[in-house]
C-alpha cells in the first residue's frame, strides 16, 4: 500500500475521531467535560489520600506525588482503550460504515490507528489540563506538599517512556478491537475489565509491593508498571532507580503486548471474514 494512502487514512481517521468526540455538545460544554472528567478522577483519589492521611496523622509527600503522577498519566490507558474499544461497534452498528472502511485500500488497521491517535491527542490535552489544575488545587489552594521539582524533569526520558508506552497501549487497544469484532455489546465492559486490571496491578495509585506475591507477579508482567516507573523517575528522580533495566523491561513487555494485540486482531479479522462479522447487524 502506498505510504501516501496510509498517511491520508491516518490523518482522516484522527479528524473523524475529533468530529465524533466533539459532535455531541456545544464547544464550551465539551471543553468543561474535557477538563472535568480526568480531573474528577484525580480529585477523588487525592482527597481520599488527604483524608486518610489526616485520620492516620501522617502525610507522606513522596507518596502523594507517586499517586498524583500515576493517576494523571493513567488517562492514556483509559482514553486509548475506550476510543479503540468503542469504535468497532460505533462504526459497525451505529454509523454502519465499517464494511466500507474495511473495503478501502487504506485498510482498517491504519484507520483504527488514526482513531486511536485521536485518543492519544485527547489524552495528552487532558493530562496537561489535569496536571495544571491538580497542582493549582492541591499545591496552591490547599498547600499540599509534593516532592516534585517541575524544573528538573528529565524530558528525554519522559518522552521515551511515553513513546514506548504508546506502542503498548495501542497494541492492547488493537487486541480490544479484535475481541470487539468477534463479539457484540461488550465494548464498555471489556474496556473496564482491562483498564481496571491495569489500574489494580500496574502500580497506578499504590505501591505494588503491598500486593500478595501472585499479584506482584502480574505487576511484573505488565508493561504499564515499567511505563509508570519510567515516567515517575523522569519527574520525581527517586534514588536507587535503575533506568536502563526499567527501559529494557518496558521494551520487552511492550513487544509482548504488540505481538499479543496484533495477533488477536489478525485472528479476529480472519474470523470476521469467515463468519461475515464485518457488517453484522446488531442493536447499538
Amino acid at each position, binding site marked *: 500500500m502506498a505510504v501516501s494512502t496510509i498517511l491520508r487514512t491516518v490523518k482522516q481517521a484522527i479528524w473523524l475521531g475529533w*468530529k465524533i468526540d466533539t459532535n455531541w455538545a456545544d464547544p464550551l460544554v465539551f471543553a468543561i467535560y474535557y477538563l472535568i472528567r480526568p480531573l474528577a478522577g484525580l480529585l477523588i483519589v487525592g482527597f481520599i489520600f488527604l483524608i486518610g492521611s489526616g485520620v492516620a496523622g501522617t502525610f507522606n509527600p513522596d507518596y502523594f506525588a507517586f499517586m498524583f503522577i500515576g493517576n494523571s498519566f493513567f488517562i492514556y490507558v483509559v482514553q486509548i482503550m475506550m476510543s479503540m474499544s468503542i469504535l468497532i461497534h460505533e462504526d459497525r452498528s451505529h454509523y454502519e460504515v465499517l464494511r466500507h472502511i474495511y473495503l478501502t485500500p487504506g485498510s482498517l488497521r491504519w484507520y483504527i490507528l488514526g482513531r486511536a491517535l485521536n485518543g492519544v491527542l485527547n489524552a495528552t490535552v487532558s493530562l496537561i489540563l489535569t496536571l495544571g489544575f491538580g497542582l493549582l488545587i492541591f499545591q496552591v489552594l490547599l498547600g499540599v506538599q509534593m516532592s516534585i521539582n517541575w524544573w528538573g524533569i528529565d524530558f528525554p526520558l519522559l518522552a521515551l517512556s511515553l513513546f514506548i508506552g504508546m506502542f503498548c497501549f495501542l497494541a492492547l487497544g488493537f487486541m480490544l478491537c479484535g475481541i470487539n469484532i468477534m463479539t457484540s455489546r461488550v465494548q464498555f465492559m471489556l474496556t473496564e475489565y482491562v483498564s481496571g486490571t491495569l489500574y489494580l496491578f500496574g502500580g497506578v495509585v499504590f505501591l505494588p509491593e503491598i500486593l500478595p506475591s501472585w499479584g506482584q507477579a502480574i505487576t511484573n508482567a505488565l508493561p504499564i508498571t515499567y511505563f509508570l516507573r519510567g515516567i515517575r523517575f523522569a519527574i520525581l528522580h527517586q534514588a536507587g532507580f535503575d533506568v536502563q533495566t526499567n527501559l529494557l523491561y518496558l521494551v520487552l513487555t511492550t513487544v509482548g503486548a504488540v505481538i499479543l494485540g496484533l495477533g488477536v486482531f489478525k485472528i479476529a479479522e480472519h474470523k470476521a471474514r469467515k463468519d461475515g462479522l464485518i457488517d453484522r447487524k446488531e442493536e447499538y
Partner: protein
Amino acid sequence: MKLPHSIETRDLTRIFKSKNETVKALDKVSLSIEEREIFGLLGPNGAGKTTFIKILTTLLLPTNGEAYVGGFNVIKEPDRVRKIISLVSGGETPGYGILSVRENLWFFSQLYGLSSTAAREKIKRLMADLDFEEYANTRMAKLSTGYRQRLNLARGLLSGPNILFLDEPTLGLDVLTAKKLRSYIVDWAKKEAKGTVLLTTHYMAEADEMCDRVAIIDRGRILACDSPSTLKENLKQKQIMRVEIASVQADFGFIDKMADVIGYSQTRNIQTGTTTLKIMVDNETAFAKIMRQLEKLKILSVSKAEPTLEDVYISLVGRGFEEGEASTSA
C-alpha cells in the same frame, strides 16, 4: 493466476451453520462475467445474491470453491481485489450522519488514496452528475432516502473502480430517483474502459432494463444464465395469462396440482382487495381447466401476458418471487 474474465467463480459454495440449522446459501455457483458487462443476479430475498456479492467483495469467505475478481483470488489476494472494486448497497447508511455530504465524500476519497486535487474535482463532478450539489454542506443524517443513495453511489464511484458491485441499489427509492440512478450506472459502464457491473436485484424491470446478461438464482443455485431477451424468448411456446380476482384470501394451491401447469405467481393487494394471478401453462386446455375452478370467485379481468423475467423464474421454479421469499429462510 490471471484469468481473462472480470469475475469468475468455480463451484462457489457457502454454508452457514448455527446451533439449530445449516443453510446452504450458495451451492456450487459457477459464473463468468466479462469486462464492460452489466450482469444481473436475479432472485427472491434469501436466494443467495448478497452472500455471492459479499464473497466477491472480500467481506466473506466461501466454504468451498474459487472466486476471481479482476483476475485476483478473493480468498488469497483480498487487498488487490479491494483496490479495483466498489460496493454500493440499497437501504444502507452511506456515511457518517454527523458529517456533511462533502465531508463524507472527502473522508472516503482519502481512504481510497486520492490526491487532494483529484478528490476535490471528482467530488464536485459526482455531486453535479448525480444532481445533489445543493446538499453538499447538509449533514448526511438529514438527507432523504433518495439523496442518501445518490451519496452512496457517489462514494462507490469515487475510487474509479473497475468493477462495481451493486446490491439492490434502488431498494426503497422513488421511481424517478431509481430511474436516474439506473441510467447513470448504465452510462458509467459504457464510458469506463473496464467498467464491469454486477447487480443483484429482485426487481425484474431493473434487470431487464439494465443488464446485458442475467443469471437467475434460487436457494443458492443458478437456474439459468443468458441475456434477458433470450431467456424470455425461450418462453414463447408457453401460455402466460394474467387473471385479476376480487379476493385476497382465496387459496390457489390447486393450480400447482393441475396437469400441464408450469407455475404461477400471485400478488395480493390488500388496499384494492384484489389478487393478480400470473399463470403459465403448456397449452390452452390446461388454462381452461383452471378458469373453470376460478369461476367460483369473482374474476375482474383476464388477459394474455408477454413473457417477463419473472415468468422465466416461474418457469424454472414453479412459483413467483413472493412465494419464494415466503418459503426461503437463507
